[in-house]
C-alpha cells in the first residue's frame, strides 16, 4: 500500500526531511565530540580542547544533505531500474563472458609493456615513481593476494596471520644476505622453503579448528611472530630493524654507478630507474609464477582436494581424502609464495623492521582476496589494483592543498578511505568484484556460474 503510493507520487518529501534531520542528529552524536572538539597539547604540555565548529557543521551538513538525496533521488531511481531489469539470472550474460575471456590476456600484455609505456611517456627519471610506487607496490600485493588465495579462496581456510610468512621470507633474506653474503637468487628459494616450513609448523596445531576460531588463532600466530621479531634484539635488532640489505644482481651485474655496473656496461647514463624496472619485471614474473602454479595445481588431485575441502569437509573425509595433508599443503604453498614475496620486499626496500608486518597488512591482504571474489585470480588482481593503487593515488592529491589550505594532508586519509572502501564494497558486492566462477570440473559443458554457488569453506 505505502509502496504503491510512493510509486505514484514519487518519494515522500516530508518523511525524507524528517529522516535526514534525524540522521543529522545521530551524526551530531557520533561526530560532535570527536570532530568538533580537538584535544591538543599546549606549551605547558597540558591537554586543552579546541572547538572546530565550522568543520563539525560542514560534516553534519554533508550527511543531512546526502541522506536526503539518497532518500529522494538515488534509492527511488535504483529501485525503478531494478524493477525494469527484472530478476538477475544466475548465469552472467554473453558480453560479460567475452569480457572475462579477453580481460586476462590483454592485461597481461599491458603489464609487460607498462614500464616501456611509462618510460617513453615520462623519460627514465619521471618513470621512477610510477614504476616503483604503483607498479612494484601493486604487484607485491597481487602476488600476496594470489598466494593467500590458495589458502582462503581454494582451500577455504581463513588465515588472518598471513603476513607472518611474508615476514619470515623478508627476515630470511635480510639476515642471511647481510651475515653470510649469499646472493638473492640462492636465498629466494630458501626464503620460500623457510616460509613453507613455518606454514607447516603453524598449520599443524590448527588442523582441528574451523571458521572464525581458525582466523583468530592464525591472527595470534602472526602477532606472536611480530612480537618475537621486536623483542629478540640480538638476532633481529628489535624494532629498529635491519638496514643496508644487499641489492639484487642480474647475473652478477650490479645496478649501481660502479665501473662494472649495469649503466656502464650498457653504456647508458646513470639512473636508478634501471634497477626499478628490473625489479618490476622480477616481481611480475614472481607473481605470474604464483598464478601459473595455482592454475596448474587446480587441475591436479591436490587442487581438487582443496576445493572439495572448501565445499564440504565431512564429505571430503568420508570420500577418503586426507584432510590433514590437504590443509597442510595449502598452508605450506601459500606460505611459500609469501616467503618469495617477502625476500623480494626485503631486497627492494633494503630495510626491514617489524613495523612492516603488522596485523593491518594481513587484514589488507585478506581484504584484497575477499573483495576480489575468493578463488578468482582476475578478481584478486583487480582488487589489489583498486585498493593499493587507489590509496597510493591519494598521495598524489597535493592539489587539494590549494582548496583546503596548507595544513590539509590527503595522505592521512589513506587508511580511513581504505577501511570505508572495505565496508562499502562488502555491502555492495558481498561476493567480491568478480562474482562469477569457472568450475574446475564440469559435466559435458563448461559454463560460468555465480559466485554465490561456491562455498567459502568452514575451516
Amino acid at each position, binding site marked *: 500500500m505505502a509502496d504503491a503510493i510512493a510509486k505514484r507520487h514519487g518519494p515522500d518529501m516530508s518523511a525524507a526531511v524528517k529522516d535526514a534531520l534525524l540522521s543529522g542528529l*545521530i551524526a551530531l*552524536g*557520533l561526530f*560532535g*565530540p*570527536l*570532530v568538533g*572538539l*580537538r*584535544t*591538543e*597539547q599546549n606549551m605547558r*604540555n*597540558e*591537554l*586543552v*580542547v579546541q572547538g572546530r565548529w565550522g568543520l563539525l557543521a560542514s560534516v553534519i551538513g554533508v550527511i543531512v544533505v546526502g541522506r536526503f538525496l539518497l532518500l529522494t533521488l538515488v534509492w527511488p531511481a535504483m529501485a525503478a531500474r531494478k524493477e525494469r531489469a527484472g530478476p538477475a539470472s544466475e548465469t552472467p550474460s554473453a558480453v560479460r563472458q567475452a569480457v572475462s575471456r579477453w580481460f586476462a590476456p590483454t592485461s597481461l600484455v599491458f603489464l609487460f609493456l607498462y614500464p616501456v609505456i611509462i618510460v617513453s611517456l615520462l623519460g627514465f627519471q619521471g618513470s621512477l615513481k610510477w614504476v616503483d610506487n604503483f607498479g612494484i607496490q601493486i604487484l607485491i600485493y597481487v602476488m600476496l593476494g594470489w598466494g593467500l588465495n590458495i589458502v582462503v579462496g581454494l582451500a577455504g581456510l*581463513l588465515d588472518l596471520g598471513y603476513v607472518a610468512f611474508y615476514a619470515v621470507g623478508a627476515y630470511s633474506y635480510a639476515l642471511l644476505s647481510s651475515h653470510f653474503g649469499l646472493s638473492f637468487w640462492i636465498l629466494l628459494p630458501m626464503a620460500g622453503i623457510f616460509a613453507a616450513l613455518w606454514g607447516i609448523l603453524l598449520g599443524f*596445531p*590448527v588442523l*582441528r*579448528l574451523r*571458521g*572464525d*576460531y581458525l*582466523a*583468530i*588463532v592464525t*591472527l*595470534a*600466530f602472526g*602477532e*606472536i611472530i611480530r*612480537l*618475537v621479531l*621486536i*623483542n629478540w634484539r640480538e638476532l633481529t635488532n628489535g624494532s629498529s630493524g635491519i638496514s643496508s640489505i644487499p641489492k639484487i644482481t642480474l647475473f652478477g651485474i650490479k645496478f649501481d654507478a660502479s665501473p662494472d655496473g649495469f649503466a656502464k656496461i650498457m653504456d647508458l647514463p646513470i639512473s636508478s630507474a634501471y634497477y626499478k624496472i628490473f625489479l618490476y619485471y622480477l616481481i611480475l614474473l614472481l607473481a605470474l609464477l604464483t598464478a601459473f602454479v595455482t592454475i596448474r595445481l587446480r587441475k591436479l588431485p591436490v587442487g581438487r582436494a582443496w576445493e572439495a575441502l572448501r565445499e564440504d569437509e*565431512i564429505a571430503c573425509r568420508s570420500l577418503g581424502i586426507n584432510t590433514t595433508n590437504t590443509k597442510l599443503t595449502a598452508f605450506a604453498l601459500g606460505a611459500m609464495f609469501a616467503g618469495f614475496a617477502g625476500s623480494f620486499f626485503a631486497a627492494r626496500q633494503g630495510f626491514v623492521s617489524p613495523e612492516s608486518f603488522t*596485523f*593491518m597488512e594481513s*587484514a589488507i591482504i*585478506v*581484504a584484497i582476496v*575477499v*573483495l576480489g571474489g*575468493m578463488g578468482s585470480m582476475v578478481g584478486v588482481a583487480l582488487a589489489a589494483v583498486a585498493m593499493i593503487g587507489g590509496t597510493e593515488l591519494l598521495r598524489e592529491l597535493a592539489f587539494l592543498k590549494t582548496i583546503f589550505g596548507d595544513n590539509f594532508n590527503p595522505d*592521512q*586519509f589513506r*587508511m*580511513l578511505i*581504505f*577501511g*570505508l*572502501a*572495505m*565496508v562499502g564494497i*562488502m*555491502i555492495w558486492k*558481498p561476493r567480491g568484484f568478480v562474482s562469477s566462477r569457472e568450475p574446475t570440473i564440469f559435466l559435458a559443458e563448461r559454463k560460468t556460474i555465480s559466485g554465490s554457488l561456491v562455498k*567459502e569453506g568452514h575451516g
Partner: protein
Amino acid sequence: MEVFLQQLINGITLGSIYGLIAIGYTMVFGIIGMVNFAHGDVFMTSAFIALIFLLVLTTVLGMSSMILALIIVMVIAMVLTSLMSWAIERVAYRPLRGSFRLAPLISAIGMSIVLSNFVQVAQGPRNKPIPPMLSGGIEVMNSNNFAVTLSYKQILIWVVTAVLLAGFWYLVQKTSLGRAQRACEQDRKMAALLGVNVDRTISLTFVMGAALAAVAGTLFLAYYGVVNFSDGFVPGVKAFTAAVLGGIGSLPGAVIGGLLIGLIETFWSGYFSIDYKDVAAFSILAIVLIFMPQGLLGRPEVEKV
C-alpha cells in the same frame, strides 16, 4: 608474598577492564555468530570520548570534584558509544546478515580500520595524557620496605565493574529484553516466529556491549592516564582471548576469562619478562582454542551433517 599480592591487585584491576570488553564480544558472538572485530576500536573511541568530556568538564567548566566528573563522563561516554555501535551495526553489519560467512568479518575489520584512522585524523596521532587524578590509596601491607597498595583508582575500577556486572546480570536474566536475547541466541527464526523483534534485539545487544566497553574505556583512561588512537587493537584481542577462554557465548565465562587473562598478564610481567607479556596472552589464545575450543564455561560445538 608482597610482590604476589601487589600483582594480584593489579591483575584483578586489569582483568576487570578486559572482562568488561569481553562481554561485548561474547554477546555478539552468541547472538549472531560473528567476531565483532571493531569492538576493540569501539573501546578505544569511547576512551577518547571520555577524554574529551573530561577535559571539557574540568578545564572549560571548571568542575573540581573528580569523582563526580568521572561519573558524568562515564554516562556520556556510554550513551555516545552505544549510539556509535548502533550506527555501526545498522550500516556495516545488518545489510550483510544472511550473506556469506566472511562478509561480516571483512566488514568488521574494515570498520575497525575506519574507527582507528578516524580517531587518528580527528584527534591527531600523538599520545593524549591527562593530569593524574585520584592519586593515593590504601596501604594493605608493609613489610621488608615493600608497600602493597590498593590505590583509589583500583578501588573505583573494582566497584564500578562489580556494580555494572550485577546490573547487567539482572538485565539479561530477569527482564524481557534479556529473555528475548537468550531466545535469539538459541534459535533466531523460532524467536522471530514467536514475536520477538530480532533486529531490535540484535541492535540492543550491540548497544549493551558498547556501553560496557565505554565503561572500560573510561576506566582505562582514568587508570593509565593516557590514550592513543592505536590502543584499541591489543586490548581488543586480549578481551577476545578472555571471551574465548571463558567459553564464547557465556557471560560469566567472559568475566572469569577477563580476570584470568589480566592475572596471567600481570604475573607474567612480574615474574618473567615484560617484553613477552603480549606473546603470553596470544599463546594462551592459541592453546585454549586448540585444546579446549569450548572454553571454561562454554558448550561444545557439535557439527551436524
